[in-house]
């Protein structure tokens, strides 16, 4: 395993596996978000349930913290490997071309690195915003565990919603290349039919995540979620 990490392919495999975990989280998170359309009561009780999963075997928030630690580790490894690989790539071409032409690479593929940076910043903002209520609210507006209210109030500010929508498009692009890429890196798509399947899977995942998540701020702004 250690020998594997020392190779460029090993680092990519780490990115693929952690990317897989994070994609799973993103999809689950998106499905959870959709519960907001079931109304205030259902949405708030979902938030309570998340903290009590596994009870009485597990204590308050125990399951949530295990999940958070796994995600945190995945993020750390994903970014760590990305930074190392990026530095390798920059070092591999010290003299740049006067002229280059992208023939095959998609916009999504070419923006993975900066897209990743944007997503990291977005996640920080997102946690400060909805988890801590530290940004985006007037003093006293944010009330812990009134998640439904907090979302509605938070997204009523149009530029906050706009920022979330842009971030979701960035996330979708990252997934469009990332989901396909992780199966390529793990070498499970060596024949034509599989390659088509994973390409489609990546497209669908990215579209579903974008549309599912955007529906929340759009719903708030359109007055569907009040």
């Amino acid at each position: 395993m250690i020998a594997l990490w020392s190779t460029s392919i090993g680092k990519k495999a780490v990115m693929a596996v952690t990317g897989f975990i994070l994609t799973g989280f993103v999809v689950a998170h998106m499905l959870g978000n959709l519960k907001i359309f079931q109304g205030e009561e259902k949405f708030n009780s979902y938030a309570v349930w998340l903290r009590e999963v596994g009870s009485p075997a597990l204590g308050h928030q125990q399951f949530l913290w295990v999940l958070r630690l796994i995600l945190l580790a995945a993020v750390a490894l994903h970014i760590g490997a990305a930074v190392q690989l990026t530095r390798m790539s920059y070092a591999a071409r010290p003299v740049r071309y006067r002229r280059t032409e992208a023939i095959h690479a998609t916009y999504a593929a070419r923006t993975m690195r900066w897209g990743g940076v944007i997503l990291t910043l977005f996640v920080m903002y997102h946690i400060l915003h909805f988890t801590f209520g530290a940004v985006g609210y007037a003093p006293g507006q944010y009330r812990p565990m009134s998640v439904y209210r907090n979302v509605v109030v938070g997204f009523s500010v149009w530029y906050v919603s706009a920022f979330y929508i842009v971030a979701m498009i960035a996330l979708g692009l990252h997934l469009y290349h990332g989901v396909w890429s992780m199966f390529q890196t793990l070498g499970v798509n060596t024949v034509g039919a599989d390659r088509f399947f994973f390409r489609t899977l990546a497209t669908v995942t990215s579209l579903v995540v974008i549309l599912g998540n955007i529906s929340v701020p759009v719903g708030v702004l359109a007055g569907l979620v009040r």
Partner: protein
Amino acid sequence: MNLTLRVWRQKNAHARGRFVTYEARNVSPDMSFLEMLDVVNEELIGREQEPIAFEHDCREGICGACGFMINGIAHGPKRGTTVCQLHLRTFRDGDHLTLEPWRAKAFPVIKDLVVDRGAFDRIIQAGGFISAPAGAAPDANAILVPKEDVELAFDAAACIGCGACVAACPNASAMLFTAAKVSHLGLLPQGQPERNDRVRNMVAAMDREMFGGCTNMGECQAVCPKEITIAFIARLNHDLLAASFKGRKPPRTAASP
């Protein structure tokens, strides 16, 4: 037809290079790109100037010696073609073309458009071979190989090692080259005994040469004159991951007579 060329000129590995503009006048559309450069060079020699250095050998697209960037595309705009097989009819009269050498840390420029691709040789030396007892050539059908495997191995073996994949890759990665070489032996029965060591050693050699890491963009397959696809890169990844979970064999020592 007439063309305007902006060519990278660099005296030697240590000199600083720069772009110099040349005119290719009255060249035939039926000429290959290299023949056109020959004409330009004749003219330069006539004026007692240093001709443009570029690599070439077979001029029929099978040796892998030639190659440079034409307007930012390795081997020029035509798919599945080396520059020696690229005809001027691909371009329009009066076109401006920028010619640059492959650019990668692992491929230092030797002169003008010529780069040192020794890094590829060292990747091959690390495992791109099979060990077999020498002697008379074995019967062609002594070992039966499934048709699909043969076809696939042949697709990979078509690699001529020109370096366009590295040149086109935004990361200057040598994954397509290494993938082709690892796959073509890994797919055949003769390649099995050394399969795990081969992939580990060749990937290690590739990383040592300071090539970048692949981000699955696919630029390499778009410029490969032999149209080798990145499905082979998936195969390489698969082989390396599989090999990493198997133990290393103890080194073999030659039996003393």
